[in-house]
């Protein structure tokens, strides 16, 4: 199971060597996770997170490569990958916005915040802005219920949001992203 042939429309044939697909850093991080579990496949979810941290999302190729490395069936790994909200099986933008849509945020009027974000970015749930900066997703309760409405962008939590403050956060991030691009 070292090489898999992906036949596409019977014309292009892509051969990927899954033994060299993952970087040394990715493999090292995954092997560390394996070392604290009893079985290799138990590190599946951690491995997905490691690869996602390096590549932004989990492609089919990443999935094959991880399943090879952990010697686990691809179906089991895909079952795990699709089970979780925070594993992205499609490409996402530089910043993934998770707007909490659970009950405290509902009672505090998160809908207005959501509308403002959608208008500001001109995208709907599940979409990525044309410049690849932002992807918009929902999230169940972020555990900020006393400071609702809340959203998470990347690893940061933003609380007590208003439509204006949410848009300001995104504008700031967009500017920061541009500064990073220039450097």
């Amino acid at each position, binding site marked *: 199971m070292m090489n898999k042939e992906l036949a596409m429309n019977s014309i292009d044939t892509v051969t990927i060597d899954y033994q060299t697909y993952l970087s040394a850093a990715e493999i090292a991080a995954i092997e560390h996770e394996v070392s604290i579990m009893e079985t290799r496949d138990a590190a599946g*979810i951690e491995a997905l997170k490691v690869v996602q941290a390096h590549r932004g999302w989990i492609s089919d190729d990443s999935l094959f490569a991880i399943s090879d490395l952990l010697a686990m069936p691809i179906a089991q790994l895909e079952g795990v990958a699709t089970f979780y*909200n925070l594993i992205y099986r499609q490409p996402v933008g530089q910043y993934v916005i998770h707007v909490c*849509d*659970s009950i405290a945020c509902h*009672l*505090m009027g998160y809908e207005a915040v959501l509308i403002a974000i959608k208008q500001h970015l001109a995208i709907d749930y599940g979409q990525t802005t044309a410049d690849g900066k932002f992807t918009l997703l929902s999230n169940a*309760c972020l555990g900020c*219920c006393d400071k609702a409405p809340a959203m998470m962008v990347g*690893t940061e939590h933003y609380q007590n949001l208003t439509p204006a403050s949410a848009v300001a956060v995104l504008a700031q991030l967009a500017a920061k992203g541009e500064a990073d691009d220039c450097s």
Partner: protein
Amino acid sequence: MTVAKFNTVITPLTQWVNLQQPLDFTAYCQVGGYQAAKIALTEYQAHEVLEIVKNSGLKGRGGAGFPTGMKWSFVPMYAPEDKNAPDNKYLIANADEMEPGTFKDRLLLEGAPHQLVEAMIIAAYTIGANKAYIFLRGEYHLAAKRLQQAIDEAYQHQWLGDNIQGSQFSLNLYLHCSAGRYICGEETALINALEGKRANPRAKPPFPQVSGLFGKPTIVNNVETLCNLPHILKNGIDWFQGLAPNSDAGTKIYGACGRVKKPGLWELPMGVTLREVLYQHAGGMQAGLAFRGLLPGGASTDFLVAEHLDTPMDYDSIAKVGSRLGTGGLIVLDDKNCPVAMVLNLMRFFAQESCGYCTPCRDGTPWAVEVLARIEQGQGRIQDLDTLSKLCDFMWIGKTHCALAPGAVEPLRSALKYFHDDFLQHIEHGCCHYNPSAIAKRRQVAQSSVQAVTTSSNMTGSANE
């Protein structure tokens, strides 16, 4: 035995919580940290600690309120040389906190990470586990960082690893960060998740205490439950029971969210009244709003209303008035928020988070969403109320594989009881009275249909057909 007789601490769990900068190892030791673990390891046999925990009356803070000592007593214990002994037992701290309206464990995780590490040493020693995991929800990034720091420090100072502090006891503690799925908080689903499987709950029996993680005896405890242990060991049973006015022991971290003046968290004696939490601590409703009802312990508990406000918030008292203490986090409904929309939001959450393993829940929760959405949008029919009641029955305890679906039923069935008039109004008037634009739209539609009737010679059917 060094048990302090006169301890005046009344907020043991949160006394060292510092959200800006949690105590590091040295600072934690300076305030008496790791003393309880030392007492456990040096002064007691495992079965003696178990007796103390049993007698303390500590109950699980994860939602069900199961007595912790009793739960632990189901774990098989073996003599050191027993050939039948499993090669491992496990302790897991359930830090998956994803129940909407619940944010108490976050305070303990971010504010006092060493307290949990110390608590887990005591718990693992008692049940004879040499490996432990903290199962943390994926969204708690700050907690992850701080917990890992605390764990690393504990290893450096020989509070984790082989032969802790020169004793016979060894423990390895690891942090596992999940990736966002509510069902992972259910203890058997959590175990599947840790094994790298899809996190569907398991059938019980066998119970995890006997056959859990990798088939080995396993205890899963909530973070807040565990954090009580160092204090019980240090200050004794009498002190712990003296903290609470009623039959339940200890303190509880209560919370409040929704449109109250001061949403937040408070560590209070177990069994303070709902009224005290709502009015004294949360400051009552925001200006211009009136109280309608509340869920006393997170999204999967039954609504309580004004007549219940003098109920003590302990397990038995809340159960007597038809709800559950759950996680102790109040979700407060005001008179400007629509109860139907509230239940719809809750049911959407449960439908989305249903793991899909069993039919009543997989099909029942989206069905309830569909019916509730219809009612909320003013398209409901009177039979829909029967459908909802039937769904509550189909998804009730004993008919589903785990407790998620019955939890989903609780706010719905109680809303049907306490906010029946709101449901009826939505159906009879064909709109939501809490939503001004919907009322305006409804008027427009009504006016245009009057015009349609008067300008047309055809008889048009009723709008509700």
